[in-house]
């Protein structure tokens, strides 16, 4: 019934709107025709009339009424707000439409607010109704002319406004309330209502809200908290109230309340007049100290507390009598943390550092005390520990980060003293565990010219020598960064001496740290590093090259000419470096080197590797048809003499094919159709990635090879195997992205057709090729073929002799396409149990156990129960490998629960 009446109202409203928009009638005539129903004493009649009129106002175009028409409508609908809840609801909808779409006269706004605040009771409104009301008032407060009208009410606006927003609990509504509140506080004189106004947001602080944001239109606790804090900080007269509120909440036992109070307190201290900091600093400190002692080691608390101390320092140094105030607070801090135990063990130094970090004034007052304490602890020897070294580093860091921190004479002397102690500690082998931190500290000290004198400079040199000779345990990057800072600070003479030392000792971090910022000595250092030939040296060259690309020419030539043999552990770094160099050198250099490589190409694995990397990364334009023929002939002749290099040779041929320009001579390419099966597959891959016209010819041969060669299935699947480093992404973008899809579309129907008529042995080969290919391609591509492949998959599941590699592909395909395949429990359970046992490879065992675990998602309990005993008995929960045991334990628990309560 309700929906029927609703439909009638809606249809009637639509009819009226159409009549108004076509010019057949106007709103005034509509209202006249509705006549007495708009003021009917019968609730339902008036409700329907209000809804109809409201719907009409909502649906007519914006601005189709004038101010003279809007004013009486506004007055009429406002009067309905104090009536029956159904009438209020309909009136609110109409009012919202009027404010949003029609020109409301300013005078009428004032009248609306006054009547609304005086006459309307909000008790029976739903959350949605309230939201609409808030949106109306939000519109009034954010529109400049409406706001002017409202401001004429002065502080008389405030009680009504508070009544409107009070006791709101819906998060989305609250966000609107907080937003309106801030506008009101900034635009209306608070007068006697100041305290009442403060009480409103204070009642919500701290926010207690943990529901997921998707339930409340994206409103999170963080957003509400930010909004309530903005409200609390929105007026100057709130300052004392805010501080007191925070101090009160800090004493609560609720962690969120404490953290939020600390943050608000910091904001309040920074926002309000600095005098508030002087007034309350002595009251704030005991609470902070107590909180810190109770929550040491908890990062959220520590960060909030130290930031608060820094904020206090900043504000105390801004008052007229700053020295007296800063000294007073410093004294309080120092009294609490002067004892060694408090300073070091209780991390009192962190308060000293935090306060010193507030301003240069604070630093000059408190940091000398901290420096004296730390230097005396270090000279004592027995108190050198992580905490005292951390304190030293932090003190220097604060001085270095302050504007003109080194300008203060006292602080300079303190830093010099500490630097001297730090250099001495660097030479003390019994303090090795602190060397990394000391290096960081000295790096910060270096900009202070006088801090490192000749004696300290000598100590640093000796430390570097010692680090080289004793194979220091300090991470190479820390040493390298320190050397870089020293060499740029001390100048060329220091760098030259160290460079000589680095060359003598072949020390990678030392040489890498000595590269000039402008790269003047980069070539010389790269040359030295390349002669070291280990992975760290190549990594260092790579970093230098990326910062100084003009070096690419030298590095490229040197990598190709001086490396006769590449150790296995260096191969990957060598390939990466050569790839970067190839992409960075000018075209003329590549052409020359390709010719040179062609001349040197032999069975030797180094030259083949170099050739493959250069081919992978050079643009196709450098390879003419004649060059390709020569290279292909050479590669083919090498292939005849060496079976061990067949993979890399095949990859090189694939790259040659990949770079071949269509339209140029392709006879050399056609000759390769007779190559071995791996090469044919790779060439097919290279051609397919460029969408070359010959790609299907090679795929045909690769397809035939599946049944004709033992390696046929694996080679065939190689075509879709992703090898991004060998076939890097450049050129032929669309073909490259779609090539796996094209391969599957081309090959799967052929494989299925052949499978139907194949012998048992051929079926194994064909199904292996299918499974291996499915293993390599993405889920989205594979799933298009899985339903068609069902007969093959069923056949494979019944074959215990299916090799492990294709089994992995088969299992992966089954797991991700179980619903489409519609396999029976009997078809899958035995193969899964077989694969979950040794001698299947570990990866297959884990996949199979996971497959057993997932069966509960695909079958009913009664279907699984007959197999429960067998599965639980067979699961390898006692396997030698932890990963197997973990998977088996999880599956075991799940299977145990089957059929239980």
């Amino acid at each position, binding site marked *: 019934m309700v929906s029927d009446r609703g439909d009638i109202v809606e249809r009637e409203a639509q009819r009226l709107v159409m009549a108004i928009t076509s010019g057949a009638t106007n709103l005034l005539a509509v209202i006249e025709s509705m006549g007495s129903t708009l003021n009917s004493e019968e609730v339902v009649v008036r409700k329907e009339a209000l809804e109809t009129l409201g719907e009409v106002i909502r649906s007519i175009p914006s601005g189709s009424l004038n101010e003279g028409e809007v004013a009486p409508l506004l007055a009429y609908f406002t009067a309905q707000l104090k009536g029956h809840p159904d009438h209020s609801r309909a009136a609110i909808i109409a009012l919202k439409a009027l404010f949003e779409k029609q020109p409301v006269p300013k005078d009428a706004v004032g009248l609306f607010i006054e009547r609304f605040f005086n006459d309307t009771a909000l008790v029976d409104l739903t959350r949605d109704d309230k939201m609409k009301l808030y949106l109306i008032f939000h519109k009034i407060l954010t529109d400049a002319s409406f706001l002017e009208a409202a401001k004429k009410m002065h502080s008389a606006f405030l009680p009504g406004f508070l009544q409107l927003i009070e006791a709101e609990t819906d998060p989305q509504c609250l966000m609107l309330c907080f937003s309106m509140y801030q506008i009101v506080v900034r635009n209306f004189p608070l007068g006697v209502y100041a305290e009442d106004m403060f009480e409103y947001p204070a009642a919500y602080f701290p926010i207690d809200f943990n529901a997921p944001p998707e339930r409340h239109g994206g409103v999170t606790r963080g957003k509400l908290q930010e909004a309530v804090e903005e409200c609390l900080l929105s007026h100057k007269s709130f300052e004392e109230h805010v501080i007191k509120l925070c101090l009160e909440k800090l004493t609560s036992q609720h962690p969120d309340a404490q953290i939020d109070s600390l943050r608000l307190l910091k904001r309040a201290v920074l926002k309000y007049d600095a005098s508030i900091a002087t007034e309350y600093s002595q009251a704030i400190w005991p609470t902070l100290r107590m909180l810190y002692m109770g929550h040491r080691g908890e990062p959220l608390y520590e960060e909030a507390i130290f930031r608060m101390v820094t904020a206090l320092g900043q504000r105390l140094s801004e008052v007229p009598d700053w020295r007296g105030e800063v000294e007073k607070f410093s004294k309080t801090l120092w009294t609490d943390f002067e004892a060694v135990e408090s300073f070091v063990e209780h991390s009192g130094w962190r308060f000293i550092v935090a306060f010193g970090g507030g301003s240069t004034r604070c630093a000059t007052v408190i940091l000398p005390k901290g420096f004296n304490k730390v230097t005396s602890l270090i000279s004592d020897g027995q108190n050198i520990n992580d905490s005292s070294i951390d304190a030293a580093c932090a003190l220097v860091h604060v001085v270095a980060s302050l504007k003109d921190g080194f300008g203060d004479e006292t602080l300079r002397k303190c830093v010099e003293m500490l630097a001297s102690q730090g250099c001495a500690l660097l030479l003390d082998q019994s303090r090795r565990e602190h060397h990394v931190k000391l290096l960081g500290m000295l790096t910060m000290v270096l900009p202070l010219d006088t801090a490192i004198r000749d004696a300290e400079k000598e100590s640093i040199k000796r430390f570097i020598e010692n680090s080289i000779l004793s194979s220091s345990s300090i991470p190479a990057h820390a040493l390298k960064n320190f050397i870089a800072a020293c060499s740029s600070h001390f100048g060329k003479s220091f760098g030259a001496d160290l460079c000589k030392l680095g060359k003598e000792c072949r020390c990678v971090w030392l040489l890498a740290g000595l590269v000039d910022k402008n790269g003047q000595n980069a070539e010389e250092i790269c040359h030295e590093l390349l002669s070291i030939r280990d992975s760290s040296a190549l990594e260092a060259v790579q970093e230098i090259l990326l910062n100084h690309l003009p070096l690419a020419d030298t590095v490229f030539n040197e990598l190709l000419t001086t490396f006769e043999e590449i150790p296995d552990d260096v191969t990957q770094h060598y390939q990466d470096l050569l790839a970067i160099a190839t992409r960075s050198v000018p075209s003329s250099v590549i052409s020359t080197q390709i010719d040179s490589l062609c001349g040197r190409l032999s069975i030797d694995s180094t030259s083949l590797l170099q050739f493959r990397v250069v081919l992978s990364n050079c643009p196709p334009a450098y390879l003419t048809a004649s060059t390709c023929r020569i290279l292909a002939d050479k590669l083919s002749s090498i292939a005849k003499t060496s079976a061990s290099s067949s993979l890399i040779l095949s990859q090189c041929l694939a790259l040659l094919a990949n770079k071949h320009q269509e339209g140029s001579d392709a006879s050399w390419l056609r000759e390769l159709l007779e190559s071995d099966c791996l090469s044919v597959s790779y060439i097919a891959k290279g051609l397919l990635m460029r969408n070359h016209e010959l790609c299907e010819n090679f795929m045909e041969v690769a397809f035939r090879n599946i049944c004709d060669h033992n390696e046929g299935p694996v080679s065939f699947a190689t075509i879709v195997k992703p090898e991004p480093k060998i076939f890097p992404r450049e050129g032929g973008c669309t073909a490259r992205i779609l090539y796996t899809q094209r391969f599957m579309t081309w090959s799967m129907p052929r494989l299925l057709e052949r499978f139907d008529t194949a012998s048992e042995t051929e079926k194994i080969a064909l199904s292996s090729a299918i499974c291996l290919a499915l293993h390599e391609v993405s889920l989205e591509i594979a799933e298009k073929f899985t339903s068609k492949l069902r007969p093959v998959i069923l056949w494979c599941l019944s074959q215990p002799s299916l090799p492990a590699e294709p089994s992995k592909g088969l299992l992966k395909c089954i797991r991700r396409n179980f619903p489409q395949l519609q396999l029976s429990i009997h078809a899958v359970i035995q193969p899964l149990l077989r694969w979950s046992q040794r001698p299947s*490879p*570990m990866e297959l065992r884990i996949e199979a156990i*996971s497959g057993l675990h997932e069966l509960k998602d695909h079958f009913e309990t009664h279907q699984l129960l007959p197999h429960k005993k067998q599965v639980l008995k067979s699961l390898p*929960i*006692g396997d*030698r*490998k*932890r*990963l197997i*045991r*973990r*998977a088996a*334990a*999880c599956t*075991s*628990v*799940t299977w*145990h*629960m089957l059929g*239980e*309560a």
Partner: protein
Amino acid sequence: MVLNLGFGSFQLENAAPQVFATVKDRPVTAAELDDAIEDPIDAREVFDLIRDINDPEHPLTLEQLKVVAEELVTVDPATRVIKVMFTPTIPHCSMATLIGLCIRVKLMRSLPREFKIDLMITPGKHDQERAINKQLQDKERVAAALENPNLLSVVNKCIAEPEY
């Protein structure tokens, strides 16, 4: 004889338990990926089996409530004995026996049978420590408890595996 599991009270005994940080997942090492190298069962592995058990009262895991901890697990590979201690959140916790039962069932179902599991309350952490330990060590009482469908349902809810 059946286990006394402290049912009958529907009010939370510890309405606002302290929630602790959890340890990071165990990283997979190169040795663990090598099928030829044996990985012996250690305390961390046993802890990983029980850390995700749900508390019967709160939507929190036993690890989050610090009822179980890695340092409370010991494994003796020579004797094949695994000793697990657990710490109820409050000394008079009536759920202690149920929690112990969950731990025992989870370990029984996840570990090879040749391991003996010694399960007990951390000494001094429960008012009825001796009585509960005795119940949890009694195989017959454990088996009898698991015959009760309602109890088994509660245990299964607590030990249900998170998806891996």
